[in-house]
């Protein structure tokens, strides 16, 4: 606990809040009564051994689990105090507010421009072509990709390198102007240099977005996040400031995991 800087940030109120959130995949109880607050303006890292339910938790926040056959969610999960699983809530609107970046870069087989313009187009965010151009350019700029691609906007998004593709996906997510960005192991398919770039980007984005990132790399969690949640076998074992987790974990399981005794 050598630094208290992140513990009392002014913007640290709960953006997303889970109360006894459980998820079943058919018989499988993948997430068991999780209570977790995600604070606004911070990067929250979810760590834990494979199959512990990190992705499951993440995909609850934008209701991506709706697409999974037989997935059942119970308990409460709120975004800015309103229930995410409310029947009246439209997933389209939810996903416009909660963007997602996936483990494997998945650009559309369309031009770089169209990749980024797709979200704004379907939500009608731009009134005319100029505004759309503007959104595409700022998104690319924010994702740190503009310099590399500004002469090849009409080329296919799939023609980029893996790292560029992942930043394209991040640009695509922020083009919609979400409040929360979910990232499921965004760097697992990238080399160290591309990873460094994405991490830098996450740090830059923290100012304006609430970010939840799943990662298998303890170093990455330590580098980019302010808070860390440790999951084990579907349960949330411990959540606290990142420094605290890595320097002074309260639970023996957490300690065992971060010191590499299992996982």
């Amino acid at each position, binding site marked *: 606990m050598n630094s208290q800087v992140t513990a009392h940030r002014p913007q640290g109120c709960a953006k997303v809040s889970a109360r006894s959130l459980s998820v079943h995949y058919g018989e499988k109880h993948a997430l068991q009564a999780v209570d977790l607050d995600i604070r606004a303006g911070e990067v929250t890292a979810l760590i834990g051994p494979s199959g512990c339910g990190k992705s499951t938790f993440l995909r609850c926040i934008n209701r991506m689990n709706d697409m999974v056959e037989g997935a059942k969610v119970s308990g409460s999960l709120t975004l800015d105090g309103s229930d995410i699983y409310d029947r009246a809530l439209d997933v389209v609107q939810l996903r416009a507010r909660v*963007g*997602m970046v996936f483990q494997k870069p998945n650009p559309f*087989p369309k031009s770089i421009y169209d990749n980024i313009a797709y979200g704004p187009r379907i939500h009608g965010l731009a009134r005319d072509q100029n505004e759309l151009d503007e959104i595409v350019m700022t998104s690319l700029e924010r994702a740190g990709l503009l310099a590399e691609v500004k002469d090849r906007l009409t080329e296919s998004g799939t023609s980029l390198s893996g790292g560029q593709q992942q930043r394209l*996906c991040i640009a695509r997510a922020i083009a919609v102007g979400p409040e929360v960005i979910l990232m499921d192991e965004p760097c697992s398919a990238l080399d160290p240099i591309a990873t460094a770039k994405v991490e830098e980007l996450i740090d830059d984005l923290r100012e304006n977005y609430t970010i939840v990132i799943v990662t298998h790399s303890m170093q990455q969690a330590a580098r980019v996040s302010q808070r860390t949640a440790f999951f084990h076998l579907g349960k949330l074992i411990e959540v606290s400031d990142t420094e605290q987790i890595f320097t002074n974990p309260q639970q023996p399981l957490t300690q065992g995991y971060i010191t590499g005794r299992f996982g």
Partner: protein
Amino acid sequence: MTETTQMARLGAVRPTAEIVAARLKRRHNAERRFRAVGLGAVLLALGFLGILLFTIVGNGITAFVQTYVRIDVTFDSALLGIEGDTGPDALAAANYQAIIKQSLYRTFPEAKTRAEQRQLGAMVSSGADIDLRKMLTADPSLLGQTRSLWLLADDDIDMAVKGHIPRQQGIAGNRLSDNELRWLSELESRGAVETRFNTLLWSSGDSREPELAGLWGAVVGSIFSLVITLLVSFPLGVATSVYLEEFAPKNRWTDLIEVNINNLAAVPSVVFGLLGLAVFLNILGMPRSAPLVGGLVLALICLPTIIIAARAAMKAVPPSIREAAAGLGASKLQVVTDHVLPLSMPGILTGTILGMAHALGETAPLLMIGMVAFIVDIPATPLDPAAVLPVQVYLWADSPERAFVERTSAAIMVLLLFLALMNLSAILLRKKFERRW
């Protein structure tokens, strides 16, 4: 560590490399055998294709030319039966057969008896008068004049010229009498026999006279039917697959539907013809022999193929693309129309063209809805009675005249050409859709 000791022991007995090497030869042999069998199968298929094409082309290529004979024709108003009256109605109704006969008798004065004259008159097609009528109505001043004209020869003469009927005289049972053979040789020696490109084949409908029978009615009928098939089966098939693949809940009912669609693909097509007869003709009272009904029946036959192909193509769209779009807030329908459909379009088109090619060759179900009728007129709309290419092949193959044999092969060639064009368009369409990225 027991594992390592075990490994070491295994290694000591026989190193892995040795074991692999010992089996390598067998593996290579198996591969070579497999390749040889595959190559043999391909060669066999090519051989059969070659034989098929060779016989069809060999039989049918001569149907694309037709024999004409040159005769000096006198437009004699007395024989035409229009003395005094040269109005268009009179010209249209005039007896052109008579002047053709007269001209023939004058060319071969040695034909004296009625039997000989009848043989002589039969050397020119009974449809040759149509050309004369056209000439005279276009230019009434020809009346009373003599012109040297090329007239369409009768089918037996045509066959003899093309070498399908023996030319030696004195063969018992020959389709051509010795007289006719002699006259034909004489005409040939005067340079009055010629084969020309067969335009009638491409402009007229069916006829009892082989030399007058054309394919155009069947071609137009096939085009009408296929357009209707495409218009019905493509939207319906794609909509069904989209619903089943993307929207329908996965339960027992949808499983049942899926099984049934797969079964429908295997139902004999004649059953669809009976269904069409019962529903479209008897219940809905649609016209018989019409390409509209034919197209609808063929659409039923195509649907399972299109649905199966479309669903397979849509299943092959990577889930990551769907997730990416859904994650941006695209609705289910937007995911489908913006991503799934464009990406699966090459597969859907392939399935559609395969189904259409299948439909193009269907005969049995069309017989059920009366498309086997003898139809001379070229259909002007999909509601007019019409033949289609495979039915035309079937009808001609059933006709005894030698000249219909070559026309049957010609019709098959046209059918195959259509198939090739459709497959080509499928390839081009796929290229177009794929080249976008």
